[in-house]
């Protein structure tokens, strides 16, 4: 008996030794690090650090396009202001401020209080400038009026006071964003996050506003209307993690408020003028709660899932059918507001497993639903504040459900070749649309290799095939759609994608990257509608660093985009429109440390040009082009250990031609009063000098 059991005992003893031996150091972290003073760790003796930069810059010419997103739209001087302030002590505070003298300014504060609570504050502005060449006879706020003595006429040619009434009007919006968030780490396992963000967007936008009860008699004016919108977003999150699993619960809230419910304007095409009214974007609300988690089933297998349920709602009071009292709808509105409700449901699940050291498989299931529970009703609407319609329209509360299953395997051969194969099945259900359900199968194969230490390559090919249930023309739409037309988001489609990339470093100082990407969407079964679209992209980039102080980058890229679509004006003849677009981008630049710790200079040059041509049957529209040269030069010279002199210069030459805008004066078209905008074209220099001081 002893002989039999001694092996068990010996085995257990050996296991005990083995186990204890693997736990070589039983001391706690506190015991091990008790004498770790970190005496040589830097920054301890300088709790406050930072750098402030101030200076002046000047822009040589006016251009909204140059000022788009940058705030440098007006000729003249601008203040340069940037700052970085850091505190390191029991607490940590980082403050970064950028472009303080511009409309594109930003301030971020990131702090950590006693290692348990993180607080963040962010403020930013983004100017979006759309036009500085618009001219309009209208003036006002949400009610745009024509000037005294306006002479209305059925065509713009008869508006005799138009020329004298035109005033410049800028079209732009400025977005301001303020965000505050806090994260509290109760323990290593449990943390809470709270975040709030308010975005406001103010400015002006141009709307095409029409009168008339059919397309032949319609008269439209492009009118600039004010924008004043606020979106509040909040999020509360709880995260909990254990050794094998982690989970989270997230509540999200987003409320959109529009200062304007409606816009009104005078009809420039009538004498005396009449008034029209359109709806502004209605206030709306989104709420969502999500539960998510991941679980490490075994060392090499992880499952994760997220389930979200939410609702989009909108219940703004309706405007009347018309503001013209002489028009009398036969019936009252069927309800006073939409009381629109869309329930959303999202479920995602994935399980990823490393079956062997070199074989990884993944299964994924995703489901996304928008279940629109808004009631339907019949609206006997007034056409364009002009005449009572003889038609009644019923709203369509569109619902969607998308379900995707994906299986993917990845095999690594000799640590150098990775093969990946994936299959995806996608089912998309829609309501109140021409196709109730589409199904799409996708196969995808990838190969990547790092055969040599200086040579990497990747190849990807993908094919998908989509088909739908019977295409049914909607009977409730008036006039009825051409039964031969296939909307391309639900039409039968064959899609092919392929891409290849190679990274090669022939010498240590040089890296070359080449990329080619091809995509083709084929809608062979669509007699009318989009029939084919294709994109081809090539790019070659080089990074060169012959000496440590000099880094050079060069790149060229070309993209060709083509599409073919068919229309039917008079059955059975089909017209074909062909769109051909080419985009070329080239860039070159360098960073050079002329004198170490003293003088640095840098240059970035970007050339971007595009040309587009549209032909309908054999007739060709004029070419649409954009061309931009941007050169940015930057230099900094260290005057002392703490102070630096900086210089910036940006040169930009931009030219755009668009036949839809250029040469179209406010009265060029008889039935549309436009803003007479012109495409931007400019040559601008921006020079700035600044002094920065570090402490």
């Amino acid at each position, binding site marked *: 008996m002893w*002989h039999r059991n001694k092996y068990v005992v010996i085995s*257990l003893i050996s296991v005990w030794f083995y186990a204890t031996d693997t736990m*070589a150091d039983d001391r706690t*972290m506190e015991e091990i*690090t008790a*004498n*770790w*003073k*970190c005496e*040589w*760790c830097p920054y301890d003796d300088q709790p406050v650090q930072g750098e402030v930069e101030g200076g002046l810059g000047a822009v040589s010419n006016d251009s909204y396009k140059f000022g788009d997103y940058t705030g440098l739209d007006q000729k003249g001087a601008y203040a340069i202001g940037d700052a970085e302030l850091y505190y*390191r002590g029991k607490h940590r505070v980082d403050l970064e401020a950028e472009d303080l003298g511009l409309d594109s300014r930003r301030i971020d504060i990131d702090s*950590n209080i006693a*290692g348990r609570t993180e607080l963040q504050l962010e403020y930013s502005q*983004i100017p979006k400038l759309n036009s500085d060449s618009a001219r309009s006879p209208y003036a006002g706020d949400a009610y745009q009026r024509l000037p005294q003595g306006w002479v209305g006429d059925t065509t713009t040619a008869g508006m005799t006071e138009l020329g004298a009434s035109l005033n410049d009007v800028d079209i732009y919006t400025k977005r301001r964003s303020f965000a505050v968030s806090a994260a509290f780490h109760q323990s290593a396992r449990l943390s809470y996050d709270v975040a709030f963000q308010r975005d406001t967007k103010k400015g002006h936008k141009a709307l*095409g506003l*029409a009168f008339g009860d059919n*397309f032949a008699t319609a008269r439209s004016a*492009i009118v600039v209307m004010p924008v004043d919108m606020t979106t509040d977003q909040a999020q509360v999150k709880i995260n909990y993690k254990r*050794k094998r699993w982690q989970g989270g619960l*997230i509540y999200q809230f987003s409320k*959109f408020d529009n200062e304007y419910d409606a816009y009104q304007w005078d009809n420039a095409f009538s004498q005396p003028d009449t008034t029209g*009214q*359109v*709806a502004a974007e*209605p206030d709306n609300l989104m709420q969502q709660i999500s539960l*998510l988690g991941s679980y490490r089933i075994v060392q090499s297998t992880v499952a994760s899932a997220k389930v979200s349920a939410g609702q989009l*709602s*909108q219940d703004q009071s309706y405007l009347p*059918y018309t503001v013209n009292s002489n028009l009398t709808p036969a019936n009252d509105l069927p309800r006073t507001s*939409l009381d*629109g409700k869309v329930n959303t449901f999202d479920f995602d699940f994935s399980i*990823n497993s490393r079956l062997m050291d070199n074989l990884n498989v993944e299964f*994924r299931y995703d489901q*996304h639903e928008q279940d629109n529970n808004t009631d339907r009703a019949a609206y006997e*609407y007034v056409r*364009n504040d002009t005449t009572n319609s003889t038609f009644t329209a019923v709203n369509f*509360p569109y619902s*969607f459900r998308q379900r995707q299953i994906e299986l*993917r395997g990845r095999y690594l051969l000799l640590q150098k070749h990775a093969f*990946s194969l994936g299959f995806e099945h996608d089912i998309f259900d*829609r309501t109140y*649309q021409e196709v109730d359900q589409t199904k799409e199968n996708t196969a995808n194969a990838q190969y990547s290799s790092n055969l040599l230490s200086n040579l990497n390559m990747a190849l990807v090919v993908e094919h998908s095939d989509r088909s739908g249930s019977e295409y049914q023309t909607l009977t409730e*739409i008036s006039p009825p*759609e*051409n039964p031969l*037309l296939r*909307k391309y*988001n639900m039409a039968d489609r064959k899609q092919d994608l392929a891409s290849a990339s190679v990274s090669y470093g022939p010498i240590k100082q040089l890296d070359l990257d080449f990329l080619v990407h091809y995509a083709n969407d084929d809608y062979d079964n669509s007699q009318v509608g989009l029939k084919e679209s294709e994109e081809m992209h090539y790019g070659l980039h080089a990074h060169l660093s012959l000496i440590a102080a000099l880094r050079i980058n060069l790149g060229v*890229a070309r993209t060709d985009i083509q599409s073919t679509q068919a229309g039917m*004006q008079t059955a059975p003849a089909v017209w074909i429109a062909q769109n051909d*677009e080419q985009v070329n*981008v080239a860039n070159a630049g360098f960073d050079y440390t002329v004198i170490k710790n003293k003088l640095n200079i840098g240059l970035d040059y970007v050339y971007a040009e595009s040309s587009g041509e549209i032909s309908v049957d054999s007739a*060709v*529209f*004029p070419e649409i082009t954009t061309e*931009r040269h941007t050169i940015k030069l930057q230099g900094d010279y260290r005057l002392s250990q703490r102070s630096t002199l900086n210089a910036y210069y940006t040169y930009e030459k931009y030219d755009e031609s668009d036949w839809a*805008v250029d040469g179209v004066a406010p009265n060029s078209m008889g039935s*549309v009063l436009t*803003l007479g905008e012109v495409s931007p074209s400019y040559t601008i220099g921006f020079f700035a000098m600044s002094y920065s001081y570090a402490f």
Partner: protein
Amino acid sequence: MLTITKDKSRISSIGMAIVVMVFVDILPLSNAVAEDGELFDKNTPYSKKGADTCLKCHDEDYKYPILEIFFTKHGNRNDPRTPMAQFQCESCHGPGGEHEKEPLVGKKRAPIVAFGKESSVSSDTQNKICLQCHTDDKRMVWHGSSHASQGMLCVDCHYIHKRHDPVLSKTKQADVCYNCHKKQQAEFERTSVHPVRYGKMQCTQCHNPHGSYTDSLLVANTKNATCYRCHAEKRGPFLWAHAPVSEDCGICHEFHGSNTKPLLKQRAPWLCQQCHGAGAHANRAYNPDAADGGSFNAPFVLAKSCLNCHFQVHGSNHPSGAKLTR
């Protein structure tokens, strides 16, 4: 002399020992991701003085500057979650007790965990070291994500020892992404773009590079939910919804950039005519004659084209807005 039975007993007990040993070995390893230090060789002791040991050699003259880590969040010793508040450098690089020893003549210094493509440490282990701490909802689906499945390392994008990690910088982040995403870089040079090239928007405002359930690693559950974070006015629901708007913003819009404002896939009227061919004007073959302002067809191609009248392309809440003109 052992009997066969005894042999069997020995074999079974050795087998049991192996099973138990394997179990003992695997169990802590399977928990290692969340346990400090367990990713590293347990037989290697920690250094005697922690970071002070490391800084004797890895000082400001070292070829890979590292001192700036003490300025970063990782270097904040007042935050108990940071590596510098735990095993300091050895929290990530593993116990350095052997590495700190002067090697014998002709011998190499004992290695320590190094990061990067050149490292002998596997990419999985390198990433696990980061994921020991960086486990939250934003990294929950790193495993299996497109970046993970391509064998990417955390340090491919992140510079841990730099005072300012470029990928966390609002103005420099895109340049890091462009190292691989060259096509997207070219798209952002087009004339109508989201303001990434101006440094006023970051890739991570829409994408989660650490993994998400969407095809393009989007931060929200769907494409539209991602867009609505900044464009909530287009969310509705509207009385007169435009079906493709509710389905997918990408049916009409490019996400990065286009030469047709505003980020459109095609200009009107042809974009609209790809789905609308009814009535007496949506079905027309507008040819260049229409571009003459005096043409009857001019309003359908010039200025805002279809949007000269049907401006409510994202939906209307006006009771008379069925045709998206109100």
